[in-house]
């Protein structure tokens, strides 16, 4: 599980500490990766900076997209059970390698 936002590492460290997140949390302060996924939401930050629109992707071991969620409203995110369901689907169509 990999999270990405425009916040600097220090802010993410603080955030993960507060919420007890242990998964990989990455900083894309220049929004380069966010741009390469075409998720840039210009001027949506609190200080008028750019942020990412919320989105979730499930990738297989070859980096192919197995499932994605581009929400229509940034207050509505994918729920854990949706991701788990997509994970089950992916397991069915592409059984794990030897």
């Amino acid at each position: 599980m990999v999270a990405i936002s425009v916040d600097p590492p220090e802010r993410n460290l603080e955030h993960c500490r507060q919420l007890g997140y242990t998964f990989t949390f990455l900083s894309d302060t220049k929004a380069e990766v966010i741009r390469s996924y075409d998720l840039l939401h210009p001027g949506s930050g609190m200080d008028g900076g750019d942020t990412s629109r919320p989105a979730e992707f499930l990738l297989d071991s070859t980096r192919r997209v197995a499932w994605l969620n581009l929400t229509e409203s940034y207050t509505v995110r994918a729920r854990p059970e949706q991701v788990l369901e997509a994970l089950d689907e992916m397991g069915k169509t592409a059984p794990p390698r030897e």
Partner: protein
Amino acid sequence: MTRRWNLSLWVGFLVILAGLFTFVPVFVRFPATRDFPWPTLLMLCVGLGMMAMGLRRAFAEPQVYRGRVLGSVLGALGVALVGLFGYGVFYAPRQLPDSAGSPRVGQEAPDFTLPDKNGNLVTLSRLLETGPGGAGKANGAVLIFYRGYW
């Protein structure tokens, strides 16, 4: 002759305020009441209904009930607050870019290298090869893009 207090005006306004002020601390925490905030909407509807009842009473029987002037002011304020809530929850969050160029199902997602919370560089393709904590090849990855600004 003294006129009666128009209680439903005040209670209605308080119910609207209660609906608005409980949204963030209580109902935002649960997806079922955040994705579609039905408890908040229910409270706002009850509040508006009570205010409408109070206003009707104030204007239909001005010799019995108070609240024509103050009720109108509170009523306008209540409607404005509910409108603001509707804008903030149903309109503003939907103004998102169309993201037509983002990778679709079956397509290869772009690789990248970014610093993690401790400043160590992490490469997606390497993470898939080595797995979390170097535990061996991963079967896949879940990427979560956040708005950030915590």
